[in-house]
């Protein structure tokens, strides 16, 4: 991949090829000619590559720290319990990758194979890719502007040797910016099945999540449903419940009603979830009998049902 200048205005911008940052960039003439403004040829290449991937799910939220990565990791673990299914987990949070740690893969490196990068495997049927596998030390910061992040995402989709996959789960950073636009654009020809949106119960979070739902509508991304995470905490000593992040405006339930999107379920706060994440283990198998595990399993089942349903509808149409 050619080195993108830090201030690259983006190939489709009006300044492409003529901005100060474009001086000396190997792609300057191409950009200035306007040729780069057309659809990126990578979109077709990615479509080819993604023919071996049955379902693609994005995990999104407008708000930070609501549990996107935790959910992505556990969705992957949950789906991978069926050994006949092949699962891939792709982390496109380029500046704050959490997936390597949560999957117990910190310090792992990707390997270059003849057909591209090989994912790092947690189990035979669960492969993971993250920018974390490309860093040499835990102090390494990825101080990249948009275009460079986009280049990385393109490589993750086009140049990783994913193989035959039943479910590709994509964990994203918070917001509605470069990473989100890029993943949606690069997968536009390959088709994304839908997005699972994560929120916490309080309005400070919901106000950002409504923006994320607007984003999904804007880019015509179907919404599989919303997960309310960190809803309520049961004290381990007295068993009383506290609303640490109170649903002051009715929580995800009310928002889903208003916006007419399905609520997939609620996951309570459980200190063991954070511990499992820090140790890189699956909470589902570490603490199988907890209420949080039950609700994770319920939600995963609903997502599987979504695919079962849509799949059979597709077959009917054919």
């Amino acid at each position, binding site marked *: 991949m050619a080195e993108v200048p*830090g201030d690259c205005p*983006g190939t489709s911008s009006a300044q492409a090829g003529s901005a100060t940052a474009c001086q000396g960039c190997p792609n300057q003439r191409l950009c200035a000619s306007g040729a780069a403004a057309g659809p990126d040829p990578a979109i077709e290449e990615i479509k080819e590559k993604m023919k071996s991937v049955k379902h693609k799910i994005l995990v999104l939220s*407008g*708000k*930070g*720290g609501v549990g996107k*990565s935790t959910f992505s990791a556990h969705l992957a673990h949950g789906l991978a319990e069926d050994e006949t299914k092949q699962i891939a987990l792709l982390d496109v949070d380029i*500046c*704050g990758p*959490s997936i390597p*740690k*949560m999957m117990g893969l910190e310090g792992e490196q990707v390997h270059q194979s003849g057909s591209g990068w090989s994912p790092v495997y947690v189990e035979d049927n669960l492969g993971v890719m993250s920018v974390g596998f490309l860093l040499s030390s*835990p*102090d*390494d*910061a*990825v*101080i*990249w*502007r*948009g*275009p460079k*992040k986009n280049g990385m995402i393109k490589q993750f989709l086009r140049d990783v040797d994913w193989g035959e996959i039943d479910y590709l789960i994509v964990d994203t*950073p*918070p*917001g*509605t*910016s*470069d990473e*989100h*636009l890029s993943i949606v654009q690069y997968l536009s020809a390959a088709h994304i099945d839908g997005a699972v949106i994560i929120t*916490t119960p309080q*309005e*400070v*979070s919901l*106000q950002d999540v*409504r*923006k*994320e*739902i*607007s*984003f999904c509508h*804007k880019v015509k991304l179907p919404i599989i449903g919303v997960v309310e995470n960190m809803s309520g*905490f049961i*004290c*381990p*000593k*007295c068993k*009383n419940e*506290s*609303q*640490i992040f*109170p649903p*002051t405006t009715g929580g995800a339930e009310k928002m889903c009603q208003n916006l007419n999107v399905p609520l997939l379920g609620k996951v309570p*706060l459980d*200190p063991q979830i*954070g*511990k499992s*994440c*820090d140790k890189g283990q699956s909470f589902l198998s570490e603490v199988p009998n907890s209420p949080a595990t039950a609700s994770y399993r319920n939600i995963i089942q609903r997502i599987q049902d979504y695919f079962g349903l849509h799949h059979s509808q597709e077959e009917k149409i054919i």
Partner: protein
Amino acid sequence: RGNLARVQHILLVLSGKGGVGKSTISTELALALRHTGKKVGILDVDLCGPSIPRMLKVQDRDVHQCDSGWVPVFVDQDKSISLMSIGFLLEKPDDAVVWRGPKKNALIKQFISDVAWGELDFLIVDTPPGTSDEHISTVEALRPYKPFGAVLVTTPQAVSVGDVRRELTFCKKTGLRVLGIIENMSGFVCPHCLECTNIFSKGGGEELAKHSGVPFLGCVPLDPQLTQSLEEGRDFIQEFPKSSAFPALASIAQQILDGTS
């Protein structure tokens, strides 16, 4: 030096991790400094997910234009806290700001040069998580005004501390002084039985501060009264002096004041 000429100290609130309480700390720091008689401005450069307007209950207000640029929104009668946020520029609150880097960078430059802050003791800059466009542009545009430094926020667990380690590297690389690390959401005391549960673990922020030789500014516990008052846009510092998060927040503000005097 334009619109920032009469700003004494510029503080950035940063974290590699999302949802750790950057906006909360920015808001409470502003309120605490205001209570010591300081004039404070808040610049919210989280363009995709602005939280501060709601946290200060000014989400329905608009900014106006004047000769020297935008007039920020004043939060209180005596104009001791002023705020600029993209939240004030959106037609509908649920509108998504679907912008790539270059557009975000242009607005941030404008936010830094074109807001008529007037005289301020402190300008607090609230940022989104990460080390990308918003952060690079903000630090670059603020460089001529010599920011006083950055406060880093983390939650105790390793997943968050790991991201904040990377943020420390960002500060080092961009020459931004780290004033200290805050460990937020550190322990929850059950209001029914007073049992303390470390929902997001404990001690990770303090350990990181030690390990990296950076001052540790304190642990702020999980406090439902704090969430609640931010939801309602109330002045937590004035209304809840007996709550569990108050002493830590007040002490952090005091350390910042001591550092600047």
